[in-house]
């Protein structure tokens, strides 16, 4: 039952939260938290559990967003079909690039994923015939079986449900032979190999899974906001996502959710300091790495365990 405790608490929060949401702006922040959290839960599998950094995951988010935008508006595809096709395509792209990239370690891996993100960003900017370039493009509202997600309330419940499903899937992976193999890759790659784990293959698999998570959330965000620019795949967005993982807690699924919540709300609270958000972001990242290297949730959990 331990597995469901965190999930039950989060589900309760999602159900009760609307009592505190006064207006559509509040709903908007909650929805963005939910979407970012979903994405970061996936990214945490790669960074937190398998110990492989990616500074390019906003690229996969962008590909998902544009797949949905282009397929629905130009080809009239149903949004759900566009979203799933985007996830499949991103999965294939991630699979192809993963093997050469994930042979690298540390700084080199960081640089290679950074480069990957930048390439995707540049493609989205330059292929303006398809993407509208820097002017961006409109995205239709999400609809399925004739039912359209038109208002914030509807989006809120869908986002909450998707987040819960994402958490169940991620927790299932973590708590399985596959998840143990991923954590072993992080803990001791040598030990993992000698125990029979094809570490290269597992790195590829988790890279693909996290990229598909990113693509799915990219699609949702595109439909929800209704307008996208290549900025969705920018370097800064990748950094934001990594910061959420690090602040909330490496290798902690609920930490990822908390990190997403804090760093999604923060820019809203800091809107008076327009233009300085990025600096505050950087500062938080630095302070976390220096003072709470394991992130919020694992640190708090360790404190609680000690005081028992």
């Amino acid at each position: 039952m331990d597995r469901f405790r965190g999930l039950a608490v989060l589900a309760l929060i999602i159900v009760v939260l609307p009592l505190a949401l006064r207006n559509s702006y509040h709903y908007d922040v909650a929805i963005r938290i939910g979407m970012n959290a979903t994405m970061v839960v996936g990214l945490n599998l790669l960074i937190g559990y398998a110990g492989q950094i990616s500074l390019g995951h906003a690229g996969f988010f962008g590909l998902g967003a544009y797949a949905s935008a282009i397929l629905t508006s130009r080809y009239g595809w149903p949004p759900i079909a566009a979203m799933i096709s985007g996830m499949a395509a991103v999965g294939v792209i991630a699979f192809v690039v993963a093997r050469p990239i994930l042979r690298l370690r540390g700084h080199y891996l960081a640089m290679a994923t950074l480069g990957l993100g930048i390439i995707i960003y540049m493609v989205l900017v330059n292929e303006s015939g398809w993407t509208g370039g820097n002017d961006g493009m409109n995205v239709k509202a999400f609809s399925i079986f004739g039912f359209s997600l038109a208002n914030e309330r509807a989006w809120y419940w869908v986002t909450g449900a998707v987040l819960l499903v994402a958490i169940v899937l991620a927790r299932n992976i973590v708590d399985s032979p596959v998840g143990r193999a991923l954590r072993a890759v992080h803990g001791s790659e040598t030990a993992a190999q000698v125990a029979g784990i094809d570490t290269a293959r597992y790195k590829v698999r988790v890279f693909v899974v996290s990229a598909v998570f990113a693509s799915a959330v990219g699609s949702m965000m595109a439909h929800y906001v209704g307008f996208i620019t290549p900025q969705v795949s920018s370097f800064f967005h990748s950094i934001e996502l990594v910061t959420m993982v690090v602040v909330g807690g490496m290798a902690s699924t609920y930490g990822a959710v908390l990190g997403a919540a804090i760093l999604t709300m923060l820019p809203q609270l800091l809107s008076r300091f327009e233009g300085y958000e990025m600096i505050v972001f950087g500062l938080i990242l630095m302070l976390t790495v220096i003072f709470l290297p394991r992130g919020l949730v694992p640190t708090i959990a360790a404190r609680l365990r000690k005081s028992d």
Partner: protein
Amino acid sequence: MALLEVEALSRSFGGVHAVQDLSFEIEQGKIHSIIGPNGAGKTTVFNLITGLYRPSSGRVVFDGVEVTGYVPHELARRGMSRTFQNLQICFNMSAVENVMVGAHLRLDQGMLGSMLRIPTVARRDAECRDEARELMRFVGLDRYVGAAADSMPYGALKRLEIARALAARPKLLLLDEPAAGLNPTETHEIDALIQRIGDSGVTVVLVEHDMKLVMGISARILVLDYGRKLAEGSAQEVRGNPEVIAAYLGGSVEAGST
């Protein structure tokens, strides 16, 4: 029948000939030891056999198949398992989970099945956890069954590596200095443990400096010096070999045997 055959194996690092033209055989079902001074190339031999290093030249035949140049996880699949002189523990996991990593090849490895937690995956994993706990008791880690790996002392981690290696149910188990850094009582327990592992039918190759342990337990002993074979034979034969005595600065082989 020889379970492992090493033929003219060599490996150099820059100008250092860590292992040179080394040939030996490991017989099925026996406990063998490799001894030699620090830097003699013992760990390098293990790294070559288990695929962590590629040989500069030579061949390795395991269980009738030439496996020279195979990567570690392929060799694991064929039944090779080992521990490390400098511990390789996953400190991001519990002790039991470390042992379960060793059983990886016997578990369902499908991503989709794991993600959806299909009942067979979950059930098999729960069984594996029980087996891992059992193995921890077998190696004498009863009191650490519920522990996190990073809360365990050095001696216990050495045993944890043995439990992890056994979880793979190997044909061949390579132990790199399992008693290093242990006190006499602990060393005695490790001695008994290795004996029990050997009795269970696993072929063991032991690298160890504790001569009392080595001389008492080994069916055959291979002595290395500067990457070359200095001597090979039973404890009796090795102990009486003048070159071996010289390499050990006269006497410590004898002293250990008393």
